[in-house]
């Protein structure tokens, strides 16, 4: 995953309905670049062959 450009940061914030001054967007862009290695690191588990406990919830009686 490459770092986000200025316009991509602005676009994602706009999609989220958030307005921030340009200087704050620049700071955020730098922070996102720091977060990226973490987001890449957690992309480990492959396509699961079955339902996974973390993403399964129970319906019905407790």
């Amino acid at each position, binding site marked *: 995953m490459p770092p*986000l450009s200025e316009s991509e*940061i602005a676009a*994602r*914030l706009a999609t*989220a*309905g*958030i*307005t*921030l001054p340009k200087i*704050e967007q620049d*700071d*955020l862009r730098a*922070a*996102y670049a*720091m*977060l990226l*290695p*973490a*987001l890449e*690191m*957690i*992309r*480990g*588990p492959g396509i*699961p062959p079955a339902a*996974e*406990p*973390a*993403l399964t919830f129970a319906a019905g009686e407790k």
Partner: protein
Amino acid sequence: MHSIAETAGLIAARKISPVELAKTALARAEALNDQIHAFIRITPEPALAAAQAAEARAASGSLRGPLDGIPIAHKDIYCTAGIPTTAHSAQLKDFIPTEDATTVRMLAAAGVVSLGKLATHEFAFGGPSFDLPWPPARNPWDTTRFTAGSSSGTGAAVAAGIIMGGTGSDTGGSIRGPAALCGIAGIKPTYGLCPRTGILPLAQTLDHAGPMAWSVEDVALLLQAMAGHDPADPGSANRPVPDFHAGLAQGVRGKRIGVIRHFHESDNPVSPATLAGIENTIAVLRAEGAVISDITLPSLAEYNATGWAIIYAESFAVHEAWMQSAPEKYGEYMRHRLALGALMSAADYIQAQRRRADLITRSIAATQGVDLLITASAMGEAPPITAVSKWASLEKPGFTMPFNVLGWPALSLCSGFGEAGLPVSVQIIGKPFDDASVLAAGHAFEKATAFRATRPAI
């Protein structure tokens, strides 16, 4: 200053008056707050009313237990009926809840005397910040230093000897961090042990409520009152609560303790004094009968990557509406940290939860042969409060996050003092719902050492 356990005995023997105790604590809170900013709000009237009720129970021989008449205070994300609950934020400056948080009610039922509401990082996330309606708490050991966060006011007020204990919350280390830097004890209990109903959320799948106090014994007494099933909290566990205070007597004889050496020696190397404190803790617990070995878990970075991805995503979801309508009412640190969550994708969050499940499986497998774990809870002594980076959590992996990701009980306690004379700390971790063994190990260490005899000079 007496401990909660000692004070309870003195109240029961009518040698200490809860009213006099509350008046002394309130006076100390007023006198010190300009220096350490631990309190957002001091509440003398309800405090004295509660103290008078405790005194009446003492007189009639109907005390409710060891917490009756004990002065504490609540982190200001714990809702308190009729008393403003601000989360240290302009967003909630005028919010007055109509109901107590479940744990506030449970502690009140045990007879505690709440002196007021304590400073926090904004919504337990944004801090230390100097652009909020109230200043950040300062460390009583040196008021130029950071308390850590987010239960900063609780750490400061307990260390300063204003209150005997208090409430905290811990999503990535917010109980254990302030406990570490303020030289006190604090436990993040097993996920589900303490109800979170009425506590303003940060990230629901990682949020834990828990107590902080000067000693591990006092933490055990407070935890007793805070633990229990709450049907209103979907994360609450419906299982019997053990007697944590009685459990302290079990010590560590025969306990198998795994040292997660790579966490604090190579994944994120700690200060020499912190390392010495960890080694001393290991030596003391070995002398008390524990069997020590080294163990290897997944890397600190992997737990932190998972935990922070979850926190950024969940916290943004909690605050989305206000981030859209009134972002300027947050402090800069809070606003920016929330905005980072807005940049993440749904897949980022889901991958984090998948990785969390994977980490839990691997961590269980790696710890099959041990009962308890030991590592650092902080890198070293408290840094200057003005030197704390907005993105510190992304710069180096913290020692506390793994146990939020796992949900396992984890205790931070003082293990000595560092080069600057400030406290250093150690973290003891247990298996799910074995909080009692964690507390017993911490208590064994405190009994065998003299670190609880030194308080800040403030």
